[in-house]
């Protein structure tokens, strides 16, 4: 089955890269690239299948494109259950794409211990692909941990000045919350065993459990906390700014581009379908959390002096929209969430790549030390302008389509949340344009670091992929939403409490 092939090839690539590491950095880079290439080759049939499935256009295509289930621990009903639907295909595609981007950005930036770096990079990718395709809760948890460790290593080994603090904080936050998830997972399985007599960790069986009581609410909360920590929701978000500022550029791209999406995917896949009534009851609180994180993170982003920290808070603000979209739980807002996830993946990867390039050239991330970069590096600044505009949600680019659909969908369920979140659209340009003003416009301040080297072709190629991706998402979101249509509708039906129509 392709997904297992993708995961295995990524891991193999990682191991090969590590093996070749000591010999020569170039060899390990090529090994990593080979691993990723094999994974992409295995991914294409899946994509073709998904496209053909939606070819029928009526959204009646089969939901589960390919499914495989191998016995793993029969006693507890744990199976290697990999299943991929429209949503998973898109997210795996995004992971592989951003894998390439982070590989390209690592080309010049990572010099010491390359082999080990590519090992960590590819294992994180494998973990994330596993998370998107595992439908056995236990397997999901395993991959949830697999993607955490290498990311922690990337930050600790190749990070910037106080990377230990950031990596540890990141690790503790995610680990603690995932233990909560493990606990509620086990109790859920127990509940299922009591109700149906069979022990099984598979998502399909657990769908049937009746989780309407108080216990169901607490279990949902357990899952919710784990995912909100990963998708930084406001109360538990403060690991992200530290992790981002201290992570190396490829690390930030991975972190912002993919790891945040696992939180959003988790919310989408596990909260509503498994606990419909509890989620419905929890919606107002979750919506307020979403709105607060939109506005509060936007205000904080404006106050930052470090570029990467500013972008980190910006992604928290964007992810606040995702929480809103998911808890509105109707067709428009869910498709909007998916578009927002992909668009944010691309735009924040771009922003972080450029922040990394600026740091490489001027050796500083502080906005007040930068100034007047436009005349020195026009191409870099033009691309930064593009990504800043994409981040503030200009129509015609991916972010706007996502945000608009989310707000439109949320307006159906709770108008107040949508209206207040719409204020986020006003705050977005405030923080997005501050970077342009302080770093690129204006005259270089006396002690501003000057830089002569504009973009190198391979850097332009890297950013060009993201630019094209965002434009396609902005003008032809249909390419994406058709793929995820069947999967999303089926998910939505599962997520609605019994008796409520589509």
């Amino acid at each position, binding site marked *: 089955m392709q997904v297992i092939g993708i995961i295995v090839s990524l891991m193999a690539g990682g191991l090969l890269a590590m093996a070749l590491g000591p010999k020569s950095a170039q060899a390990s880079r090529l090994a990593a690239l080979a691993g990723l290439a094999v994974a992409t080759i295995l991914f294409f049939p899946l994509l073709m299948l998904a496209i053909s499935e939606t070819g029928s256009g009526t959204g009646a295509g089969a939901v589960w494109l390919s499914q495989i289930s191998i016995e793993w621990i029969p006693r507890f009903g744990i199976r290697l259950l990999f299943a991929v639907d429209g949503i998973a295909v898109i997210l795996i595609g995004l992971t592989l794409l951003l894998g390439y981007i982070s590989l390209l950005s690592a080309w010049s930036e990572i010099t010491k211990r390359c082999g080990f770096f590519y090992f960590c990079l590819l294992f994180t990718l494998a973990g994330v692909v596993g998370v998107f395709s595992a439908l056995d809760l236990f397997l999901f948890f395993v991959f949830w941990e697999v993607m955490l460790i290498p990311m922690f290593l990337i930050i600790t080994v190749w990070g910037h000045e106080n990377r230990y603090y950031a990596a540890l*904080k990141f690790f503790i936050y995610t680990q603690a919350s995932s233990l909560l998830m493990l606990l509620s997972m086990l109790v859920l399985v127990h509940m299922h065993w009591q109700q149906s007599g069979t022990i099984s960790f598979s998502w399909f069986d657990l769908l049937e459990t009746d989780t309407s009581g108080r216990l169901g609410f607490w279990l949902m909360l357990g899952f919710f906390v784990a995912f909100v920590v990963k998708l930084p929701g*406001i*109360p538990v*978000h*403060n690991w992200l*700014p530290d992790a981002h500022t201290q992570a190396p550029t490829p690390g930030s791209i991975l972190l912002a581009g993919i790891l945040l999406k696992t939180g959003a995917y988790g919310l989408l896949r596990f909260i509503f379908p498994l606990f419909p009534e509890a989620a419905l009851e929890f919606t107002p609180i979750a919506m307020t959390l979403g709105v607060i994180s939109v506005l509060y993170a936007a*205000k*904080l982003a*404006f*106050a*930052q*002096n470090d570029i990467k920290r500013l972008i980190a808070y910006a992604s928290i603000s964007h992810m606040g929209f995702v929480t809103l979209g998911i808890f509105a739980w*109707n*067709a*428009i807002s*869910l*498709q*909007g969430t998916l578009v927002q996830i992909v668009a944010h993946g691309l735009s924040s990867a771009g922003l972080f790549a450029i922040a990394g390039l600026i740091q490489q050239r001027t050796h500083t991330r502080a906005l007040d030390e930068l100034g*007047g970069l*436009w005349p020195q590096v*026009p*191409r870099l600044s*033009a691309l930064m302008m593009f990504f800043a*505009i994409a981040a503030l949600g*200009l*129509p*015609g680019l991916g972010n*706007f*389509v996502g945000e*608009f*659909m989310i*707000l*439109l*969908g949320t*307006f*159906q369920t709770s*108008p107040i949340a*949508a*209206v207040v979140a*719409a*204020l986020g*659209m*006003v705050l977005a*340009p*405030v923080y997005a*344009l501050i970077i*342009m*003003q302080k770093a*690129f*416009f*204006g*005259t270089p301040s006396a002690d501003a670091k000057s830089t002569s080297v504009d973009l190198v072709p391979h850097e332009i190629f890297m950013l060009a992929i993201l630019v094209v991706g965002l434009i396609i998402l902005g*003008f*032809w*979101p*249909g390419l994406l*939403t*058709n793929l995820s249509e069947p999967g999303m509708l089926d998910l939505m039906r599962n997520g609605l409490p019994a008796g409520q129509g589509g």
Partner: protein
Amino acid sequence: MNLLWLIPTLPFLGFTILVLSSGRMSRERARIVGVGSVALAFLATIYIATQYYAAAAHGLDHGAGFTVSLWPWITAGSLNLNFSLYLDGLSLSMLFVITGVGALIHLYASGYMWDDPDYTRFFTYMNLFVAAMLMLVLADNLVLMFLGWEGVGLCSFLLIGFWYKDPKNGYAARKAFVVTRAGDTAFAIGLFLLFRELGSLEIQEILHLAPENFEMGGNMPTLISALLLGGAVGKSAQIPLQTWLPDAMAGPTPVSALIHAATMVTAGVYLIARCHPVFLLSPIAMTMVASIGLITLLVAGFTALNQWDIKRVLAYSTMSQIGYMFLALGVEAWDSSIFHLMTHAIFKALLFLTAGSIILAMHHEQDIRKMGGLRKQLPVPFWCFLIGSACLIALPPTSGFWSKEPILLAAWEADPIFWYGAVFGAFLTAVYTTRLMLLVFFGTPEGGIPKTHEPKGWQLHPPLIILAGLSLVAGLFNLPAADVLPHAHEHHPPLWVEITGILLPVVGIFIGWQVFLKGRWQALRMESPAFDGLRKFLASGWGFDWLYDILLVKPFMALAKANRNDIVDLVPKAVVVASSQCYYFFSRGQNGQLRFYVATMAAAAIMIISLALFT
């Protein structure tokens, strides 16, 4: 008719070519691409217009429009928007204004910006602007219009902050973007409400569904039209959100001509004209539109009187003329408001371009106190400026008269107060225009008549002459927009109303002439210290800037500075501190004295035994 998609794509194509060339293209080629793309778009518009009239000729009922659907854009659940363009009389007339005036301004700009280092970048943004404006006007559904709406806002940000060396321009650009973005958010919320109520965002569908679903004067249509008005007010710089327009003058003059006079600021008027059935459903909204128009035209009139920068005077006069258009929309004089929009685009572009020539001649000096008696040195700009001002004051033969007069009459029909305000506004316009004319071209400033050098480049004068000719002749066109918008019923107000409407501007000219050239009634110039407070208040745009600064900007900045690193971050730090405190407290217990340990053992023994015994 299916070449309609060509019109927006031509400037967009110009934009992509200029972006991809990114600096490797020479000035000449950049000029050809930049100006050529808009000129081609104008030709395409003419071609489309001929097809439109041909179709209208053999029997197609006037109101019907043509839709060209390109590809499905956003489809999810019950929402399916597709990327489709819609052409009818209204959008055709807007096309004429945008591409026609736009092409002339581009031609002028190619000469004006000749020795600017970022030549290609300038035309990249200008082409993107024209493409976005065309998309706005041709959009079939409101979300596509929103795309054009925000694209236009972005380009105005880019162009205002074009000379990015000076941080003030950057600030003005960000201010324009954020203020218009506030209006756009109101527009977006209006869209959400519309979608929830009517279930669709296609403009034509809404215009049909609205009368059926909403009852006259109900609070839903009022709310929706208020929100749409919010968007329009943001983009057209009307009262609550108008503080950005004067600062927008920081951009190059052709930008002010194209964006802040002819096209972008009229987007709000186009939106209201396009959605007039929704507005018609709620009289309250109509009066709101009219009153906002009236207040803005008066406020802008007074402020223009006290400005010393030539471009700021024109900016406030633009704000006041758009106030007239809003007033016309409010009093249901739909077609005359669009007509005024067109004529205003022409003569205001003319005024701005001539102001550009003057500034260029005066080595980038914009303060009219330093100018004077330029009529001999700059003949062409002088005559063009004269014609432009005549139209602005709405003297009878010019197009300004033909477009402003029906607005005044319609205002009288609707409500005499509107008429009195409008007429007084006309008088103010006359005074400040003559003031501008006299201070710039007549009289002698203290330092003697400044020496000016005649700007070279053939591209500068032809557009001025064409625009001057157009602004004289434009009064005679009857715009295709008329057949889309509901026909204004014939006005027949009392005779004295019409005469005062015509005579008052002449009186204004006379007063202006007396005060500013002859130096009589100096008190009126309000220069004496007694009026200092009032003059400063009026000059600052009635203190809106100061108000918003206190209300919004300062608190936000203070809040941002106060909470630079995230109080929520203190929670984990607090946990760390608490655990280290506990450690310190308990570790003091190990003080190395044996007797202390024995004592604790004894105490523990006592506790355990008593616990065992008594529980």
